[in-house]
């Protein structure tokens, strides 16, 4: 604690330039090694477990008898466990690793007492494990994206407070005079998440609010998880890695601040769009739809920041696999946001609400955007914090292609399924006087698309195995010889060339 507090007391705040003779990339990376490796190992493990759950749940959708007699693995529970593990296991651990490393690097601060972060990280992951087992045992909440039982909440919240505070202190201790846009996004996310999480835990699980106030809180939280937590972290990472990998500044950088503030102002309101046509006051829904449309501003800003930066770069630099992942993530972010804007219009929602089209949009955001950005970033970060290159560099390309194809197949299949489902379920295709399409006919029409989901998930299992093998091997090899100093860092591109 002593070294950290002395760092804080000697730091000069954000605006003052202080030369930093000793906090170079190497020592900062060394200080981040322990926590980053813990969070990455945990995220990789959860990713694999979550993908297995995804495979089971996807298979069950077209073969409902599969593992049908095991109560623990009934569809509703597996689906809940899948969502919880992928969100709070894979997503959050990866996000923690990104936030800590990026903040340390950008603020030019070493992470003090990393061993304490290790303890907090273990608590977080114990919370996720408890939550997952709780869902399988039948203690789940049946609320999308907060499926874990109430008893996991305080554990996660406590662990988060510690991790979040540590990240903020690292920023505070920084010696950099510049505050880059990435830091804005990360700091905001660090402050927003505990707010939405604690409100959701209290008003939904600890002391549930009356009636459909719960639905509003749930919409606010579950959408906030995207617009106020995963979104800003992924966006922050793209802002950092694009210039880094392409050796050129972000195009139209002066606009980035507008993008940040408009996302901050409107992002929280969009949650109400989950209740279009629902049993809540119409004005709340309308304000959500308006906010969803206003998100066009940050999306345009991100597009004119990212795309010209990517397109104008030298072809040689674009061959890097980290760049591949992050470029796909940037495109998916802009695409998914525009799709969401359309889906949230009342007329469109009356047909496509509750269908697989919503699932497709959500997968494009959580996987196509956030997970891809996280993969690309981790492939950049890991060789630097370990001082080693990946043992199987050829798997990087394999991972990229399988992830992209798996995600693309899943999103395309779900989008087509959702389109057909929405038309058949919520309209009268034969004209206003015709009879409704029987529900079981709709189910039969969906079966081929649901089958493509299993196919897509098999491809993703291969992708994630490649990720886990490479990352696991790297981490184990560095546990073997801990004395190796982080030096002679190679970029993944150079590593891949060897």
């Amino acid at each position: 604690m002593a070294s950290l507090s002395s760092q804080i007391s000697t730091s000069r705040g954000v605006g003052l330039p202080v030369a930093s003779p000793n906090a170079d990339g190497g020592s900062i990376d060394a200080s981040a090694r322990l926590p980053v490796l813990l969070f990455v190992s945990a995220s990789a493990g959860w990713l694999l477990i979550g993908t297995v759950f995804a495979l089971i749940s996807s298979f069950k959708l077209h073969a409902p008898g599969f593992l049908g007699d095991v109560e623990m693995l009934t569809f509703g529970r597996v689906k809940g466990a899948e969502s919880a593990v992928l969100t709070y296991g894979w997503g959050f651990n990866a996000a923690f690793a990104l936030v800590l490393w990026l903040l340390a690097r950008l603020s030019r601060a070493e992470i003090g007492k990393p061993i304490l972060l290790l303890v907090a990280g273990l608590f977080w992951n114990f919370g996720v494990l408890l939550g997952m087992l709780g869902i399988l045992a039948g203690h789940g909440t049946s609320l999308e994206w907060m499926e874990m039982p109430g008893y996991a909440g305080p554990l996660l919240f406590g662990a988060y407070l510690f991790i979040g505070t540590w990240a903020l202190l690292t920023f505070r201790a920084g010696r950099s005079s510049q505050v880059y846009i990435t830091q804005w996004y990360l700091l905001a996310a660090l402050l927003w998440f505990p707010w939405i999480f604690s409100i959701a835990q209290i008003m939904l699980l600890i002391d549930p609010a009356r009636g459909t106030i719960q639905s509003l809180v749930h919409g606010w939280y579950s959408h906030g998880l995207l617009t106020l937590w995963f979104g800003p972290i992924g966006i922050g990472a793209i802002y950092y890695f694009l210039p880094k990998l392409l050796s050129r500044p972000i195009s139209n950088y002066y606009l980035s601040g507008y993008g940040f503030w408009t996302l901050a102002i409107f992002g929280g309101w969009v949650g109400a769009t989950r209740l279009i046509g629902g049993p809540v006051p119409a004005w709340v829904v309308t304000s959500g739809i308006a906010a969803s449309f206003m998100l066009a501003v940050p999306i345009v800003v991100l597009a004119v920041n990212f795309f010209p930066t990517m397109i104008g770069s030298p072809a040689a630099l674009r061959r890097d696999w980290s760049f591949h992942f992050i470029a796909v993530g940037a495109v998916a972010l802009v695409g998914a946001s525009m799709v969401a804007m359309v889906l949230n219009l009342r007329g469109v929602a009356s047909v496509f609400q509750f269908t697989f089209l919503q699932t497709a949009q959500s997968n494009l955001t959580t996987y196509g955007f956030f997970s891809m950005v996280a993969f690309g970033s981790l492939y950049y970060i890991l060789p630097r914090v370990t001082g080693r290159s990946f043992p199987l560099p050829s798997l990087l390309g394999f991972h990229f292609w399988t992830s992209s194809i798996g995600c693309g197949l899943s999103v395309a299949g779900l989008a087509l399924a959702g389109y057909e489902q929405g038309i058949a379920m919520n309209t009268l295709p034969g004209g206003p006087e015709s009879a409704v399409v029987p529900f079981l006919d709709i189910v039969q029409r969906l079966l081929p698309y649901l089958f493509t989901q299993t196919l897509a998930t098999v491809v993703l299992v291969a992708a994630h195995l490649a990720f886990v093998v490479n990352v696991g091997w790297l981490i184990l090899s560095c546990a073997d010889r801990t004395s190796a100093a982080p030096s002679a860092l190679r970029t993944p591109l150079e590593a891949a060339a060897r």
Partner: protein
Amino acid sequence: MNRSSLFFLGVFVALAASWTGIVLVNQLSYGQLTTVVDATEGLAFPQAIPGTGQQGRSVYRDLGCAACHTQQVRRPGFGIDDKRGWGDRQSVARDYLLEPHVLIGTHRIGPDLRNVGARKDGLAGRDGREWYLRHLYDPQLTSPGSIMPSYKFLFETRKIVGQPSPKAIQGLLPAAYQPVRGHEIVPTARAETLVSYLMNLKDTYAYPESRNVFVPKASTEAAGQTVGGNQP
């Protein structure tokens, strides 16, 4: 005030706005919603469902039924929920007033269940429970081609000791499902409470706020009939 405190203030205010608008204002306004006392019937609506139904709700929650089923009917003219027979009127906030955990759901992989109790009243068999029991035992019996999983684990196949149980359901099942001779299939307590919950899912009372609905011109006629037919 330096720039970093301004930044943190801005970040705080940004989220405070949506928190105030979506959570706080609604909690203070319609969070105080109360039941409606109907003088002619001498009852307050919505009515609490019986205790077994309350227990069944937690079975519904723990099995994750909400992953595929919504419990919210959209107004006539907004989608075709009314024409599908999922409910004559839209769900309103008051319907959910007495529910400890509101599970309105986000996916319709299966049909909406808000009024399943009213829907199956006619075809649920002698004691009103047969359809549910068969449906839960194996959805293929009642809905061929469905992708809903079977909930056989909510039933127990056991040896008949002494008198056969009056609750046994093998009489409702076709030949292929019959247990070994001298055995019977009995719903567990959880299955019974779940059935009780589902049977009680019906919003039949028309509240003042659920009567007047804006309906686009195209479907005014059809919707007008269904809403009108719902007056108490």
